[in-house]
């Protein structure tokens, strides 16, 4: 006689609709964050090795990884809590774990879109970097560090997940909420989302300064280049996070880093 049982087992949960899929989603995010932390280790160790000629001892590495993981999870929880009223967060992923109609194909489109934009950003950044090297009086040891393309690939994967969980889901969402409190508008108007995006992108740029110290001499020019380069791709990721979802931003970040960390070292070895 037609529909005798509820169409989806998730709806029969005693805690009511939609709690179980959300808990599951946070589990997925945590698992991805752990994978991300692990994936970035070889790349980070390569850079440390080329700069210091020694690897971090494993207890220090473990502590650093756990702190990294805790920060990622804190940012993810902030973003999941504050995102929905701001038009941010991860509704695309919630739709997917809840098996909403067409959620999978929407996610697929978002990933393709992110990969395209990210790859384009990686290529443009590489060309601008080469142009800057040709035109500007940059310090010598710009290519002091080297790593295998495989480490670069893993690093791109880890950064795509974790840096987006931190800077877009966490930081950008938090800035959007703070700004919306300031101007008393919720959801915030687009200009406010762009401001939050710019602030998060700036933070993203600053977060890439420590690695500069490893790669080359720190001066106004190199700091400016790192801030501008990372800031601009950060803006792109933030725009994708806002308009196409968190997964699009992750895919774009992965593609950009894949070009910069794996393809360029592979195709243009020193």
């Amino acid at each position: 006689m037609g529909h005798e049982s509820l169409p989806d087992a998730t709806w029969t949960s005693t805690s009511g609709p939609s709690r179980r899929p959300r808990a599951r989603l946070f589990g997925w995010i945590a698992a991805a964050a752990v994978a991300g932390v692990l994936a970035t280790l070889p790349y980070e160790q390569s850079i440390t090795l080329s700069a210091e000629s020694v690897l971090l001892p494993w207890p220090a590495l473990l502590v650093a990884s756990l702190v990294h993981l805790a920060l990622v999870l804190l940012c993810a929880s902030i973003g999941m809590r504050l995102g929905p009223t701001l038009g941010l967060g991860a509704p695309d992923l919630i739709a997917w774990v809840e098996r909403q109609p067409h959620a999978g194909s929407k996610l697929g489109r978002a990933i393709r879109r992110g990969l395209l934009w990210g790859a384009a950003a990686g290529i443009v950044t590489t060309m601008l970097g080469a142009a800057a090297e040709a035109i500007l009086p940059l310090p010598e040891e710009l290519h002091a560090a080297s790593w295998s393309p495989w480490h670069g690939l893993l690093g791109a994967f880890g950064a795509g997940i974790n840096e987006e969980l931190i800077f877009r889901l966490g930081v950008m969402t938090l800035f959007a909420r703070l700004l919306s409190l300031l101007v008393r508008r919720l959801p915030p108007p687009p200009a406010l989302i762009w401001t939050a995006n710019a602030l998060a992108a700036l933070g993203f740029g600053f977060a890439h300064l420590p690695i500069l110290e490893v790669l080359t001499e720190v001066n106004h020019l190199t700091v400016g280049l790192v801030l501008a380069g990372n800031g601009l791709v950060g803006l792109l990721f933030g725009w994708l996070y806002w308009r196409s979802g968190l997964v699009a931003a992750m895919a774009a970040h992965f593609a950009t880093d894949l070009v910069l960390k794996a393809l360029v070292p592979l195709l243009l070895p020193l």
Partner: protein
Amino acid sequence: MDQPATRAILLGSGTPHADPDRCGPAVAIVAGGELYLFDCGPGIVRRAAAACRAGATELEAVRLQRLFLTHLHSDHTAGLPDLLLTPWVLGRRAPLEVWGPPGTAAMLSHIQEAYRADIRLRLEGREPANETGWQARPHEIATGRVYEDAQVAIDAFPVRHGPAPAFGYRIAGRERSIVISGDTAPTDEIVSQSLGCDLLFHEVYSRAGFARQPADWQAYHREMHTASDELADLASRACPGLLVLYHQLFWGESEEGLIAELRGGYGARIASGRDLDVY
């Protein structure tokens, strides 16, 4: 009479009972020319049209674009396909913005999926339909501030209505504050949220009618809803400017009988809400 800048129009005062005089629960708040709908019981779009005809032009079909859901029970959401699609067919361009508990986005996407053939036909056929008005923007909320613009600030607070998340709403307008209980058993939270508000819309069931219900339904309502004497006690503590009864479960009791039940414990202003009442 001068109309207050922030006013409430009761579009539907009903319950799951198919009372032809009472549409499913829906409250419209009008402030500074803007419209905010709370719950979406069956009949909401027709009642909005009736309110519009009576002079509240903010409720014109194409302007029905912001909805806040207290919870996802069918008596509060059966008007959702109507609210999503009818105003679009009548020319609304803006997507329907819907705030509600977790599960709201899934409900909206399944409604769109159910009406996919119709939406396709209208978009791809000869009908001059716009591309955006059938879309929905869900915002799945937690408690706290959920919306704020130049006219109102809207906060969601938790209510007690079974295991799934359910909210009441507090709407702070420029010079009036309005609280909508949604469906709930009495809680201290509602008292503190509606302390000194101008208007309190609160659900209620008749204590006398309750006594005539079968034991299993009594157990259900005791846990999920508010009896007249419980509401009298709650309102005495919250002291709203006006207590408006809605979602009244009469169970054979008359409107006067229900008010008399409340009068037993509450002396201040009470109105038993009816569809299209304006407060």
